[in-house]
């Protein structure tokens, strides 16, 4: 069984973290939209070593019928980790953590979905964590917003998420798995940027009231950065088709 050794330090003398980042830096993020064929909407998120795939089906007929709500869609969300996603193999059966995360992630997205448009249907969000390295619920929420928008589900806003924590007494952005394990606090936050609304906040560790307030502000700012990346990813595919096509046209016109 793989045994991780506790690193000697999490922050070196130059203020660099284990992966070379500064305290206020996000891990590298890659967002792709519309990568699955069968799903109505889909997205793929890479954040540091996290690899997360999200698919959205719906709005579709509610099965069984009795779960339907008369005036809005039922949103269903499943957060699940692949057995090979963690250092030690994880049993495929849903764990208590996955059940809690399924709930808090659903509650992070519900405020943004205009579910009254589709009564008596379900909107299903399936999250599969293919590789996990800390902060997966935030990356999952970021990806799920993209998948919902990709499916054409009407939304009030995108939801952007990231975590802020504390390592070796200092507030740090976007903790990796090791940093979360050996650090002093971790606080995932999900935010609807244009509405100043927090839709998920959880925390474990210890923050003074002042540290907590500062960390929350940092989280909100970083969510705004992630929001810009989400918009780019959503529009990107179509804007590049537009460019491609209009470039051909102007080339032909120039002939």
């Amino acid at each position, binding site marked *: 069984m793989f045994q991780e050794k506790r690193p000697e330090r999490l922050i070196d003398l130059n203020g660099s973290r284990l992966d070379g980042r500064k305290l206020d830096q996000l891990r590298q993020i890659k967002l792709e939209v519309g990568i699955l064929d069968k799903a109505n909407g889909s997205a793929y998120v890479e954040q540091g070593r996290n690899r997360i795939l999200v698919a959205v089906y719906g709005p579709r007929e509610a099965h069984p019928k009795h779960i339907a709500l008369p005036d809005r869609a039922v949103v269903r969300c499943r957060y699940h980790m692949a057995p090979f996603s963690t250092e030690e193999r994880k049993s495929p059966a849903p764990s208590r953590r996955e059940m809690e995360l399924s709930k808090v992630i659903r509650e992070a997205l519900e405020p*943004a979905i205009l579910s009254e448009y589709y*009564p008596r*249907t379900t909107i299903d969000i399936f999250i599969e964590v293919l590789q996990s390295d800390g902060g997966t619920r935030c990356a999952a929420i970021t990806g799920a917003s993209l998948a919902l928008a990709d499916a*054409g589900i009407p939304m009030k*806003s995108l939801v952007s998420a990231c975590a802020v924590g504390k390592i070796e007494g200092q507030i740090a952005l976007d903790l990796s798995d090791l940093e979360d394990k050996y650090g002093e606090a971790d606080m995932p936050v999900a935010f609807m940027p*244009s509405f100043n609304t927090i839709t998920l906040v959880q925390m474990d560790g210890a923050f003074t009231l002042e540290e907590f307030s500062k960390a929350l502000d940092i989280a909100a700012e970083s969510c705004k950065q992630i929001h810009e990346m989400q*918009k780019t990813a959503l*529009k990107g595919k179509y804007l590049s088709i537009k460019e491609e*096509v209009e470039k051909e*046209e102007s080339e032909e016109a120039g002939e």
Partner: protein
Amino acid sequence: MTLHVEKKQMVAPGEIVAEGGYFAGDNVYKEDDKIFASRVGLVEVVGNRVLVVPIKGCYVPYVDDPVIGRIVDVGMSGWSVDINAPYPAMLPASETFGHRQPFPKADLTKIFDVGDLVLAKVIAFDRTRDPLITVKGPGFGKATSGRVVEISPTKIPRLIGRKGSMISMLKKETGCQIMVGQNGIILVSGKSSENERVAVSAIYMIEREAHTRGLTDRILEMIRKELGG
């Protein structure tokens, strides 16, 4: 009254589109005095109405929409039809021609059976009931031949074109019969499978490039090149 974006600009959900005296059209919503996009798409302004033409969206039935659907179940008094919407459609036996009620079930399968493709029209739909469709009328009924193409329902208006210009051009240039369902399902049937193939290609190309300019000309050019016309 301020417009925060340009016409034809692409927006994402939650982006502010306009403020002040504008009215909210499709795929936007109004909160306080501001209008925000609710889907990814291109902004359009019609008078003082602001709307977004969405890239993707599911089919929402409207009364009088022609639709193409698949029979998925035969019931006591009609059929359950999949019209590619979040709600299954009901085709009552009374909405077919020339049969008297009551109908024993065996009779119903003689008219339409599970797996059949039907061309129909929506006659009723509201938030509390599933859509009702009919096959009474010219051109409606079971489809017996042709190729079925499925595209995003949001692209159907582009496929039809202003006053039907795009679809008429397609039919003329490919010599195919093309039945377009508002629900994104299209039936193409032509003299030769080559004509059908080109028509199908054109339809997918329209779906992919619906949001760009000069599409009609490019489609015309592609068809003529393929068919050597």
